């Protein structure tokens, strides 16, 4: 440090002796600090990645079991059961006949007979529905003795999957000894809707709600977003109005999602009187939230189209609208699509604004239209996570796996599009 003072006038300064112990020590210290800092950086990266891995492993570990269900073999001897069903009525009006027959009681009695005292409690509360569906499909069943595979209760199910609880464990071992139990893939989880009983729930209802909602969202947000981006980037004069639009869009992109939920509640539900819990309201709300994302991505994509393309088209007589729709838009489309997919992925995982517009109701049938009450996948996850029954833990994780798989696929497509069509001019 003092060497700088000795440049002018004074005798030539002594060169630093790098071999000296002091300097060597100093260099070693500095290099050690360098290594420590680098390790710290690597540690930060690894910690973040480890957290992601921990999250995914936990979800997959819990959720893989959610796709399976334990079933019990239940023999029912219909002619000797308490089932009161009229074969003639069953042929003419099956719904009425099945509703008035006490299938639930008959199944419970059969379970008690088959598995001993308390056997009915080993079955899922929804087990009799399986029997009802079977009778509906084949009315001849009621004339004889049949064996059904019906879903087991949560306690037995968890025991079969290795949860340590002494009483159900013993019951499960007994069942296993008589070969009356199996655990296998549960197709109902992918085809049924919500239920109060974790052994018979499914995600199809919520998934269909998500699809309908996303349909509305993309149908509104994509055209509006692309047209706004085109206007702002290609035509808008520089004036106060344009500035206002730009400021609005940039702010909307940063507004917390729950505020959009409040907007949806106040405007769509209370002022316009649209139906609660409907995919169309959810779609509208999410469209307002997604649109700024698409506009910003679209503007960047349009900006990257070189001006020479526009000049060439104008030069051979195209009008400004033709220039944009025939040349600029097609060239910018891959970038716009990438932004759109990312925005849609975010909308698909969004929960809070949908809670505000009433999409947290218990819906036990898949929606059949845009105005039917519906729920969506993330909200379904939220609702199940609130359930007390322990059987819902693995179902929640399984639903999370489905949601994550979809988001991953969407992001994968976006990255693929970007890599495949990205053009450097």
């Amino acid at each position, binding site marked *: 440090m003092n060497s700088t003072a000795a440049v002018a006038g004074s005798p030539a300064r002594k060169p630093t002796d790098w071999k000296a112990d002091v300097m060597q020590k100093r260099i070693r210290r500095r290099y050690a600090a360098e290594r420590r800092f680098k390790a710290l950086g690597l540690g930060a990266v690894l910690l973040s990645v480890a957290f992601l891995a921990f999250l995914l492993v936990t979800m997959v570990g819990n959720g893989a079991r959610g796709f399976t269900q334990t079933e019990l073999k239940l023999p029912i001897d219909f002619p000797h059961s308490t089932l009161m069903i009229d074969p003639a009525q069953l042929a003419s009006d099956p719904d009425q006949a099945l509703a008035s027959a006490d299938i639930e009681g008959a199944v419970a009695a059969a379970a008690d007979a088959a598995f001993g005292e308390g056997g009915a409690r080993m079955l899922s509360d929804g087990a009799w529905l399986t029997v009802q569906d079977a009778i509906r499909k084949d009315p001849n069943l009621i004339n004889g003795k049949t064996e059904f595979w019906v879903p087991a209760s949560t306690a037995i199910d968890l025991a079969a999957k290795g949860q340590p609880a002494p009483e159900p464990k013993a019951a499960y071992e007994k069942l296993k000894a008589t070969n009356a139990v199996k655990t296998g893939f549960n197709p109902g989880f992918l085809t049924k809707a919500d239920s109060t009983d974790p052994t018979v729930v499914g995600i199809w209802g919520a998934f269909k709600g998500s699809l309908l909602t996303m349909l509305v969202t993309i149908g509104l947000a994509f055209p509006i977003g692309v047209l706004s981006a085109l206007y702002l980037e290609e035509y808008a004069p520089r004036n106060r109005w344009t500035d206002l639009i730009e400021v609005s869009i940039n702010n909307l992109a940063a507004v917390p999602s729950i*505020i959009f939920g409040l907007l949806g509640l106040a405007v769509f539900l209370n002022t316009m009187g649209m139906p609660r819990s409907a995919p169309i309201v959810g779609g509208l709300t999410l469209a307002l939230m997604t649109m700024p994302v698409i506009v910003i991505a679209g503007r960047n994509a349009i900006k990257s189209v070189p001006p020479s393309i526009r000049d060439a088209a104008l030069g051979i007589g195209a009008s400004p609208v033709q220039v944009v729709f025939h040349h600029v838009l097609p060239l910018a489309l891959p970038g716009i699509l990438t932004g759109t997919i990312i925005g849609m992925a975010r909308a698909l995982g969004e*929960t809070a604004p949908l809670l505000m517009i009433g999409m947290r109701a218990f819906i036990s049938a898949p929606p059949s239209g845009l105005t039917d009450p519906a729920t969506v996948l993330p909200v379904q996850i939220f609702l199940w996570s609130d359930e007390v029954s322990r059987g819902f833990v693995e179902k929640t994780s399984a639903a999370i796996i489905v949601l994550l798989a979809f988001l991953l696929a969407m992001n994968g497509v976006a990255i693929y599009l970007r890599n495949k069509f990205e053009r450097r001019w």
Partner: protein
Amino acid sequence: MSLAVLLAVILGLGAIGYFAARARAAAFSRGPGPRPHSLPGHHGWYVALWAAVPALLFVAVWSQVAPGLATDAMLASPAAQALPPAGMERDAILNEVAGLASGTLDAAFNPVSNTLLPAYQAAHTRYGVIGLVLAAILALAGGLFAWTRLRPDFRARTRVERVVMAFLLVASLIAILTTAGIVASLLFESMRFFSSVSPIEFLFGTVWSPQTAIRADQVGSSGAFGAVPLFWGTIFIGAIIAMAVAIPLGLMTAIYLTQYARPAVRRWLKPILEMLAGVPTVVYGYFAALTLAPLIREFGQAIGIASASSESALAAGLVMGVMIIPFVSSMADDSITAVPQAMRDGSLAMGATTSETIKKVLVPAALPGVVGGVLLAVSRAIGETMIVVMAAGLAANLTANPFASVTTVTTQIVQLLTGDQEFDSPKTLAAFALGLVLFVVTLLLNIVALRVVKKYREAYE
């Protein structure tokens, strides 16, 4: 039903107009005389727009007016004598008739509705037919008018493009409308709230218990709306605990990826880290509530904090911090890469090690950008909802103990608005006041952050 028919008729006429005009314009270019100004397609669109747009506007107006006209016609019919005089019952019957006619109701609750139904349906059908005929006439008239203007030298392209530009302008105005809608709805409902609770009490009161009683004489019938515990909880979780996780990890990650990692490693690690931002918040919330919260409570009890809650601020804050890491990291990444290479080279040439260069040159130079990024991250964290709804508690505590349960603004908004209560109580309106505060604060944070980042960018350009 009749609306679908109307739309089909109008769009059908528009399509016919398009093809007919295009064929006619195509004949221009084959015929003698000067070359036509516009392409056949432009002529086609010109006619189609004239046919469809006025008729569609008419339908939009008519669909609002027609039900009222049908009701009036029904009231004039003799069956309407049985109606009770103006009041709630009368309105209920009228609603029921409309519901029966449109098919949303299966059976009437009030027998009067059934007697009125034929009159209403007749009027409904009559006005439906009138609307259809008027719309068709309008479409034909518009189309014919446009048709008569088709000439080789007619500037159809200019006219059509003017409409296209109008569409573009309308599309971009929707952003302004949305912003205005947010501000208006929040302000309007908040005003109603502040007419029953003073803003001073709301902003500076320290007791939050929004339960309003059903009966006036019930205990705790007057809710307390002091939002300070909520603001504190939000800052504690979002701006203190979450940032204590996100800033060091995000900054170090950005430094490692930009300065140390080889390009191949960087190409792999960056998307993986961005996955953290892509995980839905409900998944983080579930993870925080189910996996992390019990661990943290056990840890708290192990180090001697008996009151450790299973809905601790720490669990929600930690998970939120992890969610924010990629956000902070990418902002820091941008500002570090924006530091001119000459500064880095200069420092290295003087013999500084890489870490010395980073600590003494790059980070100080990039600091405004990093600070701006952190502000944006804070604004995102305090607006985050699902993690705190699922993992943080509902108790409005004013405490700095990370193992205790605190509540946040967003949690309370969800709690206040997802019960079954009438919409006019101060309890539900309080949610909008909280929303307004949240909106204003995030807006200010964003404006400040963008200004900081912009100023800093200008410094190096």
